[in-house]
Each structure stands twice: as structure tokens, then as C-alpha cells.
């Protein structure tokens, strides 16, 4: 067992950290290999070395102005803003069914805490950048938006050193009538492994919009969850990934409508090139009694090489009888008629394929909050498609 007594006890006590690590070790990933082409078995990954070197990394938080707004690192938040910290930490995660969330929780220390007081709006996006500087890193983002508060938070995950393993949690707590736009861009080196859990728990009439782009890493395993426990809330989830080279990306969204009169819209735009492998699992669960829930899921997968695979699996589990649920999915290569149309205008086949592939992501890209961020994502995607 690592020396958890040396970790920050105000963020989380040693006993709870030990319990989290045990839970990580005993909880199955529930992510079996989708097929023989999938080269990485998540339940056979080597996590040795955590005992001696849990690793670390840097966090940079952009300066924020606004009455009572707090944007500080996690340890400072746990020390100086004890009550606010306790109001959010672990609240959205709840029972944490996700194996990898336990791992990050056990080592949570470096991170960012953003608090927007009741009724305060912050116009400029709050930027949180994580940079991995050692073999392992477990960044934790915690956002608490008070009643009627509004904010945009952009999280970026980068790495400078080779062969890193990253566990990350983003926890978004929006109290009644609050609105949070959260974007996460993962652009790690292509030899990194990352396990990310992002959870939102919208309060009554709250709005959560989030957009995630998984661009880097050799292996990226992500769970994006929204849990509706309060009526009148809505959530827009946009996710994109694009494994190329020999990247593996495994994204699950869990949208849990526990109460009625809640609305969710999920858009997934996934593509794979070269030997890239991807899996998107879109879970929507509408509990019995969650009447007048409204859930839609649109997932499209684009295959850009013969050896690329994407499993795109929608799963709707509906126990209430007066709900609206929509689901649409496509999987395929670039359409020949689209290619012919574009080439008939003088555009080369390569350029046409590039334009179609990049255009394919646009309905997800448009959910990212700033044009600068959208352009950065387009630039990375363009380099991958070339």
C-alpha cells in the first residue's frame, strides 16, 4: 500500500484513499475487449509501481474575475474553502461505479477547484491546464456552480514526458438553475494511457453542456456521466474521438434520468484511421417514474482505413412509459457519392476525403465554447487526417 499519510489529508484522508485503492483493485472495468482487433485488455493492464511512485504533474488555472468567484488548486481549496469544497467533492460522483474513478480518487491531490457563487455569471472561459511531468498523474477538477450561477470551464490534458499513465476526474456540481459549459480536450502524447471519469449532477432546472475531445494517448478510457436527480434539468453532451496510428479510444456515456422532466441530448462523432480502434457506448437509462424525460442520442462513426474499427453501441434502457427517447446511429466509410460530388468540382480525392472527414466532426466541434478552442481541435484533427 502506498504511504497515503504523505498525501494531503484535507482533500481526502488516508483511510478513504486506501479504501478507494482497494475498490479500484477489486472492481472490474466492465470493459471487455469488443473484438480480437482490440489489442488492449483493460483488466490485464499493469498498474505496478503505484506503491513507490504515485507521480505528479502541474496545474495552471487562468485568472478569473467575478464577485466571490474562486478558482484555485485543489489543496488550497480543501484548506481555505473547507465548506465549499465539501459541498462538491464526491457529490456528483456518488457511488462511483467506475473502476478508474477509484484510482484517481485514491491519489487525488493536484487539481483545480472552481466555485461560482449564487447568481454570478462569468463570461470568459476559465481555463484549467494539466501537464504531466512524471510517470503518473491523477488530476482532479471540481466545479461548483451555486444557484443561478453561470460559467464556462475548459480543461486541457497534456503531457511532456513519455509513457505516462493518467487518471483524471472532473466533477461538475450545478445547483438549482445554474448553467455550466464544460469542455475537456485530451491531447496527450501518443504513448500515454489515460483513464478519465467526468460526472455531472445537475440541480433543479440546471443546465449542463459539455464537450469532450479525445485526441491523443495510446489508450484513452473515458466515462462521461450525467445523473439527473432533480426535475427540470437538461444536459447537452458532445463527444468526439479520432484514433489514428495504433491508438485505442474507449468512451462510454452514461445518462441516468432518475427523475422526470429532464432532458438530455448526446451527440457522438467518432472516426478512426490507420490501425486506430474505437468504442463508443452510449447508455441512456430512464428510471421507472421518471416520466416526461426526454433523451436523444446521435452517434456516427466514420472509418477511414480498412484496418480501423469502431464499435458504436447505443443502449437505451427505459423503465418509464411516458417519455421521449430518440436514437440514431451510422457506421461507415466516406460515402462514394459525396466523394464523386466533390471531385467533380475539381477537388482532388485526397482533399475531398479530408474535407468530408473534418466536416464530419463539425456537429460535435460546434459544442466547444470558444472559436480559438474549436480551431485548435480542428488543427489537431486535420493533422491526424492528413
Amino acid at each position, binding site marked *: 500500500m502506498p504511504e497515503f499519510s504523505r498525501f494531503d489529508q484535507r482533500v481526502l484522508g488516508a483511510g478513504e484513499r486506501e479504501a478507494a485503492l482497494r475498490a479500484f483493485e477489486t472492481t472490474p472495468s466492465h470493459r471487455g475487449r469488443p473484438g480480437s482487433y482490440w489489442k488492449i485488455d483493460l483488466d490485464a493492464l499493469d498498474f505496478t509501481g503505484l506503491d513507490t511512485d504515485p507521480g505528479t504533474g502541474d496545474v495552471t488555472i487562468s485568472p478569473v474575475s467575478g464577485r466571490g468567484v474562486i478558482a484555485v488548486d485543489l489543496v488550497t481549496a480543501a484548506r481555505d474553502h473547507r465548506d465549499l469544497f465539501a459541498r462538491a467533492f464526491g457529490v456528483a460522483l456518488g457511488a462511483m461505479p467506475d473502476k478508474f474513478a477509484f484510482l484517481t480518487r485514491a491519489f487525488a491531490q493536484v487539481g483545480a477547484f472552481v466555485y461560482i457563487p449564487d447568481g454570478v455569471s462569468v463570461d470568459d472561459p476559465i481555463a484549467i491546464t494539466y501537464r504531466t511531468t512524471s510517470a503518473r498523474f491523477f488530476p482532479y477538477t471540481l466545479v461548483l456552480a451555486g444557484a443561478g450561477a453561470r460559467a464556462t470551464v475548459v480543461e486541457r490534458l497534456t503531457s511532456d514526458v513519455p509513457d505516462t499513465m493518467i487518471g483524471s476526474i472532473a466533477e461538475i456540481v450545478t445547483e438549482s438553475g445554474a448553467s455550466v459549459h464544460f469542455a475537456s480536450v485530451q491531447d496527450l502524447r501518443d504513448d500515454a494511457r489515460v483513464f478519465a471519469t467526468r460526472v455531472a449532477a445537475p440541480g433543479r432546472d440546471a443546465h449542463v453542456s459539455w464537450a469532450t475531445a479525445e485526441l491523443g494517448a495510446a489508450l484513452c478510457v473515458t466515462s462521461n456521466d450525467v445523473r439527473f436527480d432533480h426535475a427540470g434539468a437538461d444536459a447537452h453532451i458532445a463527444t468526439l474521438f479520432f484514433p489514428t496510428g495504433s491508438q485505442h479510444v474507449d468512451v462510454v456515456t452514461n445518462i441516468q434520468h432518475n427523475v422526470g422532466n429532464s432532458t438530455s441530448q448526446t451527440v457522438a462523432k467518432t472516426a478512426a484511421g490507420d490501425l486506430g480502434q474505437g468504442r463508443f457506448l452510449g447508455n441512456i437509462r430512464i428510471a421507472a417514474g421518471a416520466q416526461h424525460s426526454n433523451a436523444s442520442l446521435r452517434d456516427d462513426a466514420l472509418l477511414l482505413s480498412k484496418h480501423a474499427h469502431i464499435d458504436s453501441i447505443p443502449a437505451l434502457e427505459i423503465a418509464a412509459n411516458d417519455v421521449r427517447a430518440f436514437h440514431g446511429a451510422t457506421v461507415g466509410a466516406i460515402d462514394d457519392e*459525396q466523394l464523386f460530388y466533390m471531385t467533380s468540382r475539381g477537388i482532388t*480525392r485526397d482533399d475531398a476525403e479530408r474535407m468530408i472527414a473534418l*466536416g464530419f466532426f463539425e456537429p460535435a466541434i460546434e459544442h466547444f465554447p470558444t472559436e480559438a478552442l474549436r480551431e485548435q481541435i480542428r488543427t489537431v484533427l486535420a493533422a491526424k487526417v492528413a
Partner: protein
Amino acid sequence: MSEPGLRIERLHVRVEQKQILNGIDLTVEPGRVHALMGPNGSGKSTLAFALTGHPNYEIVSGTATLDGEDLLALAPDKRARAGLFLSFQYPSAIPGVKVANFLHAARQAVRPDSLPPAKFRQLLIEKMDVLGMDPSFMGRYLNDGFSGGEKKRLEMLQLAMLAPKYAILDETDSGLDVDALRDVGTSVNALRASDEGRNTGFLIITHYPRILQYIRPDVVHVMIDGRIALTGDAELANRIEREGYDTIREEIIARA
């Protein structure tokens, strides 16, 4: 030195193992307008797709040259860069690709570096105005959620922006109301009156003579069963309007 023109000789074309064109001879000269009429299923669109290089259309025999260049040896993008344009009857929707970006890429491909970006935009707005298109079109995704009329207007906008040497209009008039049809006519005639489009040769494929009231043809061909059955002047289109295709078909059978 070969004579200029879009020259089609003894062209036989097969689609999914079925022979559709049975020896087409047709030459569109620079600056001239040819109408290609005929009943549904006669092979008019097949000719359009075969000339532009659609992969499903197999050339069995014959030749097609553009100002002496062997079209059939070229990939579709090279045919376009050689100066050929097809206005699609059913253009593809391409979500995520904006009209302005697409038009710019196409213009750059066909006429490299001919326009600086500001001039390009100005030209685009001018041509859109002629077609009664709102500038907001530029930011929309290509044909995505477009009505039938909007798609046809966009095809005509591309024609105007690319000013090809030879343009094939495949049933551009179908599904258009009178106002839209007049806009199409105005746009084509504006191109023909411009420096860029003065020498553009047209092959206008149509089922009905309606569009020919707006764009006056120099020559009218009637295609029946994959052959050019009859060639005449603009009066032939009027005759088709009066008598229909059946009389012409009977006449040809009687002659044979």
C-alpha cells in the same frame, strides 16, 4: 491541333451490366447551347455521369474529348480542372463542409490563384444576389437540409463561380417553380455574357422544354433508347411540347 469542343463519338456506356448508351455522337462547340431532350430512362443522365467520370458508369467503347484532351482517361477531379462541369440533379449533402469553404476550394482547384479572398467573397455575393440567395447561405453546410430549389440554386451558383469551358445541366429545371427557373435562366445568361463565361458551351439535359424559354438553345437533340434519335434547331423543342415523345418514337421506328 484538334478542333475545340466537347466531342462525344460512338460512346457506349454500361451501368451495372446493363447497356444504356448505344453509340452517342454529339459535339458541343464553345459558346453554344445544346439541349438534350428525351423521355425518362432514355439515357440522358447516364451520358452526364459517364462524361464526368462517375465510377458506376462503365465506358464500353467510344471516345469523349474536351478541346482535344481525352476525358475518359482522366479522374473526375481532373475532368473538372480540364473545364468540365456537371450540375447534379440530386447533389450530395455534406454536413460540416460550409458552402463558402467548398466553393473556395473548388474555385482554387479549377482556377488556381485567380482571385484573392476578398475578391472571391465579393464575386460570391454578386452571384448569389443574381440567384436570389441570401448571404447566410455561405455559412450553411453543403446541401445539408436544403430544399430542392435551394440545391438547384447552389448548383447554379457553382456554375457561375467556376465558369467552366463546358457545362452539363442535368434536369436543373425539374422541381423548380417559375421564379426559381427564371433566376436560373438569369444566372446562366449572365455567365454567358461575362468575360469568363463567354465561351462556355452548354449541354442542357431536360425532360420539358420549359427551361429553354429562358436559355435559348442553338441545337436540340432528342435521345431515345440510348441513341440520339433526332437533331434540330430550337423549333424541335416546340414540336416536342406539342406532340410529345411518342410521335417522334413512332416516326423513328417507321423510318428504320
